[in-house]
């Protein structure tokens, strides 16, 4: 394993003089976490607490004929049993209701049907066995291509395909057909000297957060509700509860606990409504903690896919045409990540003529949820192998071929938007200059591959408040859940604006009663988007404090300025107050100062973060086992607010990508049973499997952010499988058309078995 060199100096566009941004302070909460004192979802405890457990479908597809809960209700220690009948009539979207507690049908193994609250989790589990459910078992459909066929079993009799042409007349498992067209693809292919076409399949993969979902609900005598839950977004959980319980939003307080990993999977709500229904019926607080098998069977995987890519290039090395067909498994209900897959597949390149068709397809597996750059990893696995093959056929260096064709400022994406300033070229140049790209591999059966990926930023909506304390410290609240250090990055931006040290800023995550609506911590948006809200709040603080200084000095406010060291006025150079000195006088000059940032980031022009990865792998030709020896990830992050944190995101994202590339997957039997519902069989990478990944930070500032920050957390997973596949091609001479690339599959491609 190579020596880590991640303390390298970032590549910067311009010199800057920032005091807080760019440093590496310890993260908020780190001491609590090493002491075991941080409160995660399942750590919540209340007086008179009951424990909830969920009855789940043993069948992948069945009609529910009857549910009899009477025996379970009479079991000693049981306090409440709930089914779909306990949901208020007509409340919420049908698919959300049905995925919370099944109505007429179950659509996957693990589909919730009923839940029990009892004195202990053991009693609740025993009582689950006493619920009598009668099923009419139906044939399941598990594969995306099979599900698209006209004679496939239908999950939803009323589902009809939406497309640009409107809604289809007859029922289907295809919920949506989306399409992007740019230029004239037919003419483009006619111009091409070389055309490559390949098809790829990928398996559903679970996000694999180590903390199972946990939610605790408490009803108050006035009919209001408090829910403590481990989630990526307290406000979306509140909205979900409000909708399904038919309860006004203001009467619900969702308190986000520390979150033990989410990666998109905790942007969905699974047991919050169930805990609330049980607690209401039992008249006592109820905690529902999922078991690992429940997590793997019934929560969030990312879609399995079928992707066909065809690309054409001229002899001069220019890509002139491309088309892709992406078929994504949505799981039991519509809403896969095919949209972002289609948006990302050709995102790195400037292609004059292209067409992308995407299909959102329901199958008898759990409803999919986001997973780190949702939809992008399978798409990039596919396209980067085709790009690699084009370069090879044209006898052009793989990196040079990407430089020749990469997107630039103003390039219009196939999905429509033109790019603002994004560091595609800078990332490729930094990769080319990196010693890893040219150093020898150092042994037989080794190969080096590269892949180029992109993930766009979504700023979303965020709120942040900053209250100034009399001692010159400030208290910052945000609605963004602290996923892996985001809170520290947000506070650092506020500290920079306020001219304070980070230790003078105490940041906390607020519950939904204490701050305004804030979107989920997801989509690479938190440090970027909520950071913008924190900057806005800090600027509001400074504006108010300038007015106080003006009042104290009896000068017009326009003459007062703050240079992040002291407040001064151009009228009287003898007047000067530090932030702390002025803070001490707020009470006597008009009362408390509280700054407010409420960002509608949806109106911002969207940037994003490209990443070029270099992977060295070794293949054992006898067993097919692949070992990743060396790995370098070059990424444009705009400006690294906390470089240590950015590197942590890159290392972690690559580790997940290596697992996805080589062995992770949710494997189903023909009857729809999940065959690997434990972490023994659903293998995640261990310390033995991941080399010391080297992150290389490139900083091309994003023009919409005052400090140039880009969201950085998701791009690191996107190119990994493609880079490893391209490395394996160098060893085997075979393109890898399936994920995961297990030893058996690699040997099969080599013709050994």
């Amino acid at each position, binding site marked *: 394993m190579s020596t880590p060199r991640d303390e390298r100096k970032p590549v910067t566009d311009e010199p800057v003089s920032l005091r807080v941004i760019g440093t590496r302070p310890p993260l908020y909460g*780190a001491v609590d976490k090493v002491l075991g004192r941080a409160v995660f979802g*399942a750590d919540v405890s209340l007086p008179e607490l009951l424990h909830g457990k969920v009855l789940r479908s043993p069948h992948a597809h069945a009609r529910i004929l009857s549910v009899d809960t009477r025996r379970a209700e009479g079991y000693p220690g049981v306090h409440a049993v709930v089914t779909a009948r306990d949901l208020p009539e007509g409340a919420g979207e049908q698919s959300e209701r049905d995925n919370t507690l099944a109505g007429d049908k179950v659509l996957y193994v693990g589909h919730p049907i009923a839940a029990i609250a009892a004195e202990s989790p053991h009693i609740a589990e025993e009582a689950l066995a006493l619920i009598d459910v009668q099923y009419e078992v139906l044939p399941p459909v598990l594969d995306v291509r099979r599900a698209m066929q006209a004679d496939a079993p239908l999950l939803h009799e009323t589902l009809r395909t939406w497309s640009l042409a409107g809604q289809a007349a007859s029922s289907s498992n295809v919920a949506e057909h989306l399409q992007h067209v740019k230029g004239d693809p037919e003419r483009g292919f006619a111009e091409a000297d070389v055309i490559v076409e390949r098809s790829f399949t990928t398996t559903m993969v679970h*996000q694999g957060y*180590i903390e199972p979902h946990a939610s605790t609900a408490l009803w108050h005598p006035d009919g209001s509700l408090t829910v403590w839950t481990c989630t990526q977004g307290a406000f979306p959980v509140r909205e979900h509860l409000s909708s399904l319980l038919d309860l006004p939003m203001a009467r619900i307080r969702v308190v986000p606990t520390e979150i*033990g990993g989410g990666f998109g999977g905790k942007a969905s709500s699974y047991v919050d409504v169930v805990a609330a229904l049980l607690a209401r019926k039992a008249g006592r607080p109820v905690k529902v903690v999922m078991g690992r098998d429940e997590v793997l069977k019934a929560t969030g995987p990312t879609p399995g896919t079928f992707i066909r890519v065809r690309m054409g290039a001229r002899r001069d090395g220019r890509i002139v045409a491309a088309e892709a067909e992406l078929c994504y498994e949505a799981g039991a209900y519509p809403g896969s990540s095919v949209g972002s897959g289609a948006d990302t597949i050709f995102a790195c390149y400037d292609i004059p003529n292209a067409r992308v068709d995407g299909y959102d397809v329901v199958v008898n597996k759990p409803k999919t949820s986001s997973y780190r750059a949702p939809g992008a990893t399978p798409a990039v696995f596919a396209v980067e192998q085709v790009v690699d093959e084009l370069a090879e056929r044209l006898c052009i260096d793989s990196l040079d071929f990407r430089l020749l064709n990469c997107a630039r400022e103003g390039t219009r994406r196939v999905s429509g938007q033109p790019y603002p300033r994004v560091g595609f070229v800078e990332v490729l140049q930094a990769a080319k200059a990196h010693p890893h790209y040219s150093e020898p591999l150092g042994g037989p059966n080794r190969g080096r591959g590269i892949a180029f990926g992109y993930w766009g930023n979504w700023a979303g909506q965020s709120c942040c408040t900053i209250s100034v304390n009399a001692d010159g410290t400030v208290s910052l609240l945000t609605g963004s859940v602290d996923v*892996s*250090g985001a809170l520290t990055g947000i506070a650092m931006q506020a500290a920079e604006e306020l001219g304070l040290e980070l230790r003078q800023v105490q940041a906390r995550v607020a519950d939904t009663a204490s701050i305004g609506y804030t979107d989920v911590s997801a989509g690479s948006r938190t440090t970027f988007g909520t950071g913008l809200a924190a900057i806005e709040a800090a600027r509001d603080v400074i504006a108010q404090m300038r007015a106080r200084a003006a009042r104290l000095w009896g000068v017009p406010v326009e003459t007062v300025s703050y240079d992040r060291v002291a407040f001064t006025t151009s009228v009287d150079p003898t007047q000067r107050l530090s932030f702390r000195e002025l803070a001490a006088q707020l009470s006597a000059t008009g009362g408390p100062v509280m700054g407010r940032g409420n960002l509608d980031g949806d109106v911002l022009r969207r940037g994003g973060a490209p990443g070029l990865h270099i992977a060295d792998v070794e293949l054992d030709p006898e067993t097919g086992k692949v070992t990743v020896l060396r790995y370098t990830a070059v990424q444009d992050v705009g400006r690294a607010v906390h470089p240590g944190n950015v590197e942590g995101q890159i*290392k972690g994202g690559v580790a997940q990508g290596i697992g996805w590339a080589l062995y992770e997957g949710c494997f189903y039997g023909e009857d729809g049973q999940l065959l690997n519902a434990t972490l023994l069989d659903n293998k995640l990478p261990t310390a033995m499997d991941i080399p010391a990944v080297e992150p290389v930070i490139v900083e091309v500032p994003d023009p919409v952010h005052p400090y140039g920050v880009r969201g950085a957390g998701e791009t690191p997973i996107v190119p990994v499988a493609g880079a490893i596949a391209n490395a394996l091609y160098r060893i085997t001479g075979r393109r890898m058309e399936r994920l995961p690339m297990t030893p058996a599959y690699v040997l099969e491609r080599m013709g050994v078995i």
Partner: protein
Amino acid sequence: MDGKVRVQATINGQPVEFLCEPRQSLLECLRDILDLTGTKEGCSDGNCGACSVLLNGRLVNSCLVLGVEIDGGEVTTVEGLAGPDGLHPLQQAFIDHAALQCGYCTPGMLLAAKALLDRDPDPSEERIRQWLAGNLCRCTGYDRIVRAVQDAARRMRRDADVHAEG
């Protein structure tokens, strides 16, 4: 399961006595009876290591040990690592090296690392990686955890030398 069993043990250096059901795991006893929620549940079948504790000096998954089995024994959990002088060198090294992100695997990871350093004060990188392979981390990619353990080992050897010389 009416019949509860009385268990006496030493937990984090303190004598403890509690009643539990014979079917309750050590993990459940720690979390639900003794309020020691620093030990985490990730899978309850011994595959993630989040619930790692030391039982009579041995590293165990507390989800695979019954509460009644610790009768007369000694248990160390994450709550027992810090001493009167502050954080354990492993805890400090995890903070210094940013060896945690979400922090959910951290308590188990710390105990696994302590069990290693108790046996081998100067482990190779390979040995650290092997020893920690029973503890899953989904956030960090492990590199910084390995470096934190190496650094803590250095600090602990240095402290031991100072004590020996003193």
